């Protein structure tokens, strides 16, 4: 791993896009606002050789709202053998990201997974459907406010309240 190339890359990106370093143990990470992520990815690929989108995921910080989530891009450079991470904070109600499909084709399914699991809307995505959950699923399971399987017991005093919230399968005449 060439430490020097990585240091230069981080320095150049920080200066050119006026961004800060983010806290991450490994690899070194930059905090990028959502509107700059496409340009940063393109610059990293074209000028600094980060040609491989290794991973794209998110992390939810509910009940905090600023940031509500971080989207985390992990890039890998085959030629320089360096890794870099980009963390994109997403606040409160504006959970949307621009697509980077035009830069890395591998982002297609990973962005669909972000939509499916976290409900982050990907703007400009060519095929934004659910990928792992069934297409009629309600909710986004990896959000922290999504319960892990436990059901609230239904008693006579709260029967109607809970009944209203239940998602029911409906039968439609063909």
């Amino acid at each position, binding site marked *: 791993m060439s430490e020097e190339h990585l240091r230069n890359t981080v320095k150049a990106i920080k200066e050119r896009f006026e961004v800060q370093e983010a806290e991450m143990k490994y690899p070194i990470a930059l905090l990028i606002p959502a509107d700059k992520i496409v340009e940063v990815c393109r610059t990293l690929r074209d000028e600094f050789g980060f040609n491989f989108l290794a991973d794209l995921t998110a*992390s939810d910080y509910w009940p905090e709202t600023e940031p509500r989530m971080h989207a985390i891009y992990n890039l890998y450079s085959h030629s320089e053998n360096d890794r870099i991470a980009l963390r994109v904070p997403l606040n409160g109600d504006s959970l949307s990201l621009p697509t980077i499909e035009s830069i890395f084709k*591998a982002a297609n399914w990973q962005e669909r997974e972000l939509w499916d699991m976290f409900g982050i809307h990907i703007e400009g995505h060519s095929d934004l*459907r659910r990928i792992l959950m069934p297409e009629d699923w309600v909710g986004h*399971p990896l959000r922290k406010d999504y319960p892990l399987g436990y059901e609230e017991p239904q008693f006579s005093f709260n029967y109607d309240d809970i009944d209203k919230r239940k998602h029911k399968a409906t039968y439609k005449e063909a």
Partner: protein
Amino acid sequence: MFETTEVTLDELKHLVSERALKGETVLLNMGPQHPSTHGVLRLLLELDGEVIINIIPDVGFLHTGIEKNMESKTYEKAAVMTDRLDYLNTTGNVLAYCLAIERLAELDVPPRAQAVRVIICELQRIASHLVWLGTHALDLAAMSVFLYCFREREAILDILEMCSGQRMMTTFFRPGGLWRDVPPDFEIAVRRFIRMFPPRIDQYHALLTKNPIFMDRTRNIGKISAEAAVDWGLSGPPLRGSGVAIDLRKTQPYSGYEQYDFDIPTGTHGDVYDRYLVRMEEMRQSLRIIQQALDKLPIGPVRSNNRKYVPPPRSELGTSMEAVIHHFKLWTEGFILPKGSVYSPVESPRGELGVYLESNGGPKPHRVHWRTPSFIHLQALPVMSRGHLVADLVGIIGSVDIVLGDADR
């Protein structure tokens, strides 16, 4: 807060070509119950006669919510679930998870544990490649290879059973080292295996490599160029089959791989045949690594002595109050990782297996994400198979070597 979404046919229109809407091509379902999709993968094929125009892969039938489940378990308990992801590379999954924890906690791993980890992971890689080879050949109508491959795999599973008591879901690696030391017979059994195995690889070569039927069905099929392979995020044998010599064991070594001498086999055409040759050669290289690791297998402890993460041995509990406290804390609350996040990749038999682990300073992970190679590789399937026949598709799926437990998590 959630609204119901309904998917209409209009929303799927953009996935098929214009001709499908006019009725000139046929849409055909392959899977989810189909033997050559290696699990529950559904492919929606758009066909012109027998020629594939487009493929729309549909995954998620095996989604078990492991990432969500891990958030509700302590770090040590969550390790058990990692085996269930890629069920042909169980030890590799646990290794990736343990490395992420060790990186975040700056936990040391004794040299003996590192060497044993390498040996077991390479054995597992051979076992995984044997399942791939057997099923791949079976898909292409070579029945006998399957039987031979599973015979050899049995020997590896016996070694895993000898170490951990389990044949597949071993959870033999723990944060900070191994669950326990390997038994005295381990070295003998592994040496017997690496003596027995090279002639068997020659047998597989004799059965397949120059077999005209096999060559006809694999050469110039499912081609992907080096640039496209990188762009689509391929890693592991599919990437190396296209001629890109990236192997994380070599480029970003972990667990002491830098001490061992081995080659990275690469292909030139990026077709099914090259991916086959790459994996066949990888098995030989794995044997080389095992041989070297066995020859200089250090003697010593197999688990770190850091009592904040690793429980004390049973013998200490009777004499040391501190050991009792550590024991109690570790088995009730679990250990606490410092706040932070880390991405830790390893080279699984299928490609780059990465773990993104985030801790909020508590005893349970805040977020665990698995970057699984099968998931990423499946989206490149349409690129590889456009213009080929349906019969070739089973060969292409086999050559990508997907495990649906790995893809759907």
